């Protein structure tokens, strides 16, 4: 069933509306295996909507989205298949507050991947070590700081051994002193060759990690380029304006 191509994600002619509101307009985007993409743009420009379409948290009305060789349509089987291979990290972490950190990490592997509980726990501990909080395994999310919670959320996604990771402003809800601990974990992850799509305004992270930076405005991809080119030599007026605003402070 899985078609082999060197593209992890293929989006073509993607259009989406909320009621009458045209939120995504003619999006064409291919993401190669192992590519790391940073998406930026003003608030309300459709960045979240775009990456949420990639695991079908949002439904699109026009165009095709093929993720890891599986086309996202209304076939529930396909949606399940894609979600197994795509991890997502949210702005507000969305950890399960009634489960311990370890249970947060093992639930999906046990039920979706059918991993035996013992193995799932051992693997979860490995990932918790990778995000540097193995000692918090038996605490509840409410007992952790924001930065720690977000790292647990990353570990929870990684426990499903996804081939693609989506991040929606993972550091926007964090106090400033906790941002770097999360970005460090994401940088480590980038080094493992994970395909990543990251919505963020952390331009330092973009410069250091991204292969390509995409600028969105009013539901369109306005400009995309390698970070060097993007930051030093933006082609579009809107990109320039946005960069000057975001880099001003």
């Amino acid at each position: 069933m899985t078609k082999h191509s060197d593209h992890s994600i293929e989006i073509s002619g993607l259009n989406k509306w909320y009621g009458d509101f045209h939120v995504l307009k003619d999006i064409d985007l291919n993401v190669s295996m192992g590519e790391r993409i940073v998406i930026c743009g003003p608030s309300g420009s459709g960045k979240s909507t775009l990456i949420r379409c990639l695991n079908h948290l949002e439904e699109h009305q026009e165009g095709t989205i093929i993720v890891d060789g599986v086309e996202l349509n209304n076939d529930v089987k396909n949606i399940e298949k894609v979600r197994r291979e795509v991890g997502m990290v949210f702005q507000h972490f969305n950890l399960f507050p009634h489960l311990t950190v370890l249970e947060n990490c093992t639930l999906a592997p046990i039920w979706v991947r059918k991993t035996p509980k013992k193995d799932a726990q051992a693997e979860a501990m490995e990932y918790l070590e990778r995000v540097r909080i193995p000692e918090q395994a038996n605490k509840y999310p409410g007992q952790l700081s924001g930065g720690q919670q977000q790292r647990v959320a990353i570990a929870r996604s990684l426990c499903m051994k996804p081939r693609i990771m989506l991040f929606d402003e993972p550091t926007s809800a964090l106090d400033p002193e906790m941002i770097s601990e999360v970005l460090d974990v994401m940088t480590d992850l980038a080094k493992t060759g994970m395909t990543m799509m990251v919505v963020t305004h952390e331009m330092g992270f973009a410069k250091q990690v991204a292969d390509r930076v995409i600028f969105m405005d009013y539901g369109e991809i306005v400009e995309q380029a390698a970070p060097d080119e993007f930051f030093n030599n933006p082609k579009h007026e809107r990109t320039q304006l946005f960069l000057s605003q975001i880099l001003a402070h």
Partner: protein
Amino acid sequence: MSALIKHTPLPDRPPPSSQTGIVHWAKQHLFSSTTNSLLTLASFYVLFLLVPPLVNWALLSATLEGTDRSACEANGGGACWTFIKIRFNQIMFGLYYGSHPEQIWRPVLAFFMLIGLVAPLFIERFSYKGLLAGFILLIFPFIAFALIHGAWLGLPVAETNEWGGFMLTFILSIVGIIAALPLGILLALGRRSELPVVRSFCVFFIELWRGTPLITVLFMASVLLPLFFPSGVDLDKVLRALIGITLFQSAYTAEAIRGGLQAIPKGQFEAADALGLAYWEKMTFIILPQALKISIPGIVNTFIELFKDTTLVSIIGLLDLLNMSQTAAQSAEWRGYDTEAYIFAAFIFWIFCYGMSRYSQNLETKLDRGHKN
């Protein structure tokens, strides 16, 4: 590097004493303004008029001695608690157990078994909740029935039409609430379903029962239900009431749970979806545990309502706590002591309802605190 100034935080001090103490409390709560002071004085006056005669009647000049009405008549004036004492078993356990006190251990044992089984469900770290809940739902009812009804295990038979009193009130409401729970969960989920057919059916079902008074439901359960069964099948009267009560209660439970479901942030659903959990996995492990916890105060409140509403089963000829008290007061031996009967029934209802209401308030405060971190 030059030496840095070290900062020692100030120690905490207790609040000033004018903020504490009984005088301060009275000032704040009873005499904070002229209106408030007047209301306080008026309330004290009303209490002064009501409480002493009541205490006198119910306690000081009441009768508890003796075994028949002559003791009360000799004493005159006060309440005749002798009546309640002598008819206690009948009022609490109904006609059969009232006249077979040596068998009362059976319903009592069933009651404590239930408490013992339910208690572990409230222990946070108890990990076999599902299994235990299944046992309570599917197996315990048969054990309880075998105990209370008898016939099995060689116990003398207590026909259901001789069940009554507090025992019947308790059975009707506890079975109602427990059986309504799974049904209510399904209805609440169905009401939020994306499938229009399922959603419409659940909305229709819920609104049907919510729009019908329990008394009508009981009436229909006793008159209409037998029509759905082949003639000759004689549906037990208590069972008929239970079916009606369960369906009725499931609608209210569903609404309480729907409130809980609505309180779960969208992010929880999305995180579960993004991890690839299927619908029932998402609901069972992520959404329902959180939603049910939030719904407990609401469910307890509907339970209190139901507990009191079970008095309506008199309409189909069942003698619950209230009606059994009344019946006892209408016997030749104790004619005329209705007041005592009503007050005793009210007292038992009050103890249970107040206890449950306090419990649900405690829970609400606890949950509020839980949500803040």
